[in-house]
């Protein structure tokens, strides 16, 4: 069974329908890149997978569990916020604007989840957090506050913070869009190595090069619907739909 299964996902903000029935499956260990023009609903869909937004229709399952619901006695019960929090433990998310906690050091940011949410032993968590910071190449920045780090460094800490929860799935919401061009590479490198290690990832991105080299599958969204999906070679190099061809002609 797929790790993520989305069926007929619909979402409106006011009178604007942002998602018009999205179907998507992501297998374990698979890396899926969501591409498309701005306003296509890529980020909104990603936020629905983590229940940061509620969906109006359809259903999303992560590892067989319906997102935002508890199934019991043949009924689905909507979750309270603290129950939803419990569900989110298994899904890591990286934001466009990093959203590190500015009042805590890099190390404290990474430790916050395991210590405060999982109530694990501080010393043990600290050792793991140091290892994670090493993995993203920031061991020497453990004591720095976010404001003392570059955008690329902040985003790598944010990735480490998400990984500290040992998630089954990682969501990346335009992780390099707020970065200076010369800092994009260091973040993509970390994401690439994460993909190589077998992490299941859904990545909203405009980095076509990253999608081409790392993604197992590329999904192209326009106006809240999937227009085209397939391997990077198929979708990026040999797009069938006119809308995909137009978009790629502009960004490539």
């Amino acid at each position, binding site marked *: 069974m797929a790790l993520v299964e989305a069926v007929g996902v619909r979402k409106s903000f006011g009178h604007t329908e942002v998602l018009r029935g999205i179907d998507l499956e992501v297998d374990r260990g698979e890396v899926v890149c969501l591409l498309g023009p701005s306003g296509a609903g890529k980020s909104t869909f990603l936020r629905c997978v983590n229940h940061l937004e509620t969906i109006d229709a359809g259903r999303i399952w992560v590892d067989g569990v319906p997102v935002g619901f508890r199934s019991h006695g043949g009924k689905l019960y909507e979750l309270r916020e603290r129950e939803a929090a419990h569900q989110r*433990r298994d899904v890591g998310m990286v934001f466009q604007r990093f*959203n590190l906690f500015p009042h805590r050091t890099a190390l404290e940011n990474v430790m*916050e989840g395991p210590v*405060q*949410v*999982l109530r694990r032993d501080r010393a043990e968590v600290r050792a793991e957090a140091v290892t994670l910071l090493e993995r993203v190449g920031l061991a020497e920045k453990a004591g720095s506050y976010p404001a003392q780090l570059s955008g690329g460094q902040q985003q790598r800490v944010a990735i480490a913070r998400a990984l500290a929860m040992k998630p089954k799935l990682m969501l990346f919401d335009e992780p390099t869009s707020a970065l200076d061009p010369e800092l994009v590479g260091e973040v993509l490198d970390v994401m690439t190595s994460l993909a190589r290690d077998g992490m299941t990832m859904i990545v909203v991105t405009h980095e076509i090069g990253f999608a081409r080299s790392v993604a197992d599958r590329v999904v192209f969204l326009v106006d809240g619907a999937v227009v085209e999906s397939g391997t990077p070679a198929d979708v990026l190099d040999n797009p069938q739909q006119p809308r995909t061809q137009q978009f790629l002609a502009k960004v490539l």
Partner: protein
Amino acid sequence: MASDLRENLEVVPLRHPGRWISGAVILLIIVGLGWAMAEAEIQWEDVPGFFTHPVMLEGLLNTIVLAVAAQGGAIVLGVVIALMRLSANPVARWFAVGYIWLFRGLPVLLQILIWFNLALVFKNISIPMLFTVPTNVVMTAFVAALLGLGLNESAYMAEIVRAGLSSVDSGQTEAAKSIGMTPMTTLRRVVLPQAMRVIIPPTGNNFINMIKGTSMASVIAFLELIHAANNISSRNLEIMETLFAAAAWYLVMVSLASIGQHYLERAYGPR
């Protein structure tokens, strides 16, 4: 022209005669005021005695206890009202708006008088089946002053806390959610610590106001600093001397509060 440097012209710095004149005028005014105070018919040598008079010290202690208790209660209540104001529950939201409207809208002195005279309209305070107590036993001058000052202040604190909570970027809450934090943990670990930067300065300001506001409790004969000063001067008629001693205590308290605020701001300051 570039030739300035080569021709080695003398540079004349800008003079500021206006600064010298206005500075001199200010100093003159200060010297004049000092002279007037020294010439006035004040028994300066009696002031230190009133400053440390046992009644004055009792008034000082009562002032501190009242100010700290009222402000402390107001902070706790203010956080609750602010959370209600931001709640998804419309009844809670409207209650919070009404609460702020009422307790911020009435003069503190009026509120103190109403609480103090509550026994005139309610003989007993009771929760049916739980307890009943006579109002005039509960509603001492201290309790009336505490309620009057504290409830008024809690309405202001609610607005200050709301501004603080709203100042924290929504991305912070989302990041906290994304690592599985519950709403309570998010508030305690992520939002409040950052809101503190916005909350502390006006709270310090309000606490200074609170210290001085306790003087209104003198109208219901609560023995705070002003009432203590009046008690002392009613015996020796040195009204100004006792008031100056009380004034000195207010300045000491306010100075200490300002210093405390400075350190609090530094502790929660930007990194």
